[in-house]
């Protein structure tokens, strides 16, 4: 898309969606931290690191939401969002393929989803994160090109 205003709006909407997602799941995981830790400990990938991850993950989500909130750090927020979504998607894919018993460690409303629904949800958000970063880079290049081509008075 060559319209920088539209690109800008898309970046803002996607960032807001990620802020909503991360603040919601971060708060949910912290308020049910004990349950979350118990379920994580049942995962073959996580096991003994469950206590560390049960604190680290929601705090990372909330910090990422903070980075997305401020324009100066939005790019870093989008990059971390993409990384987190790739990790979550990989984890869910592994659990679906490799394990027979699937616990749920999701927060709030997401707990109502099945594992395959959650996988589709994560794939969608991973794509959104990648798309917003791509728009971000396009907008930067557009602005840089226009700055260079400006003829001084």
């Amino acid at each position, binding site marked *: 898309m060559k319209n920088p205003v539209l690109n800008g709006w898309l970046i*803002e*909407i996607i*960032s*807001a*969606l990620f*802020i*909503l*997602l*991360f*603040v*919601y799941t971060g*708060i*949910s995981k912290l*308020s*049910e931290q004990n349950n979350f830790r*118990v379920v994580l*400990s*049942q995962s073959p990938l996580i096991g003994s690191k469950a206590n560390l991850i049960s604190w680290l993950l929601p705090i990372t989500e909330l910090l990422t*939401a903070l980075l*997305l*909130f401020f*324009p100066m750090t939005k790019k870093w927020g989008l990059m971390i969002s993409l990384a987190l979504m790739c990790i979550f998607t990989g984890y869910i894919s592994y659990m679906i393929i490799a394990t027979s*018993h699937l*616990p749920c460690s999701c927060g*709030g*409303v997401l707990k109502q989803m099945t594992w395959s629904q959650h996988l589709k949800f994560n794939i969608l958000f991973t794509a959104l994160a990648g798309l917003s970063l791509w728009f971000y880079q396009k907008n930067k290049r557009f602005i840089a090109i226009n700055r260079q081509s400006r003829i001084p008075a």
Partner: protein
Amino acid sequence: MKKYLMGIIAIVLAVGFSAFTLPKAKPSPKNSSTTLIWFEVDGDTGEALDPDNGMTSPPLDCGVSGSDYCARALEYPGEVTYDGQYHIGSGVDITTDYDDQLFKN
């Protein structure tokens, strides 16, 4: 301010959704006329192993920390009925409506 508007709306919505969708935390009975009745639960799912066999105190091998669910408590009267034995009331879901829980030591 305009550039922060969408972020503020997102945060407000997230906090609002969290308040409505998180399970209620009731660690102790509301008043002296209610008591907690304990049911042993499945370690993985948290479902009651025997919904017609509630106890007035939790099993000895349950504690505040552990890797599997051990026992969950519901309030009597209200969520539990009594006819010589304590039963989980109809419409009560022990996986979401519990008032306290312990883990296998």
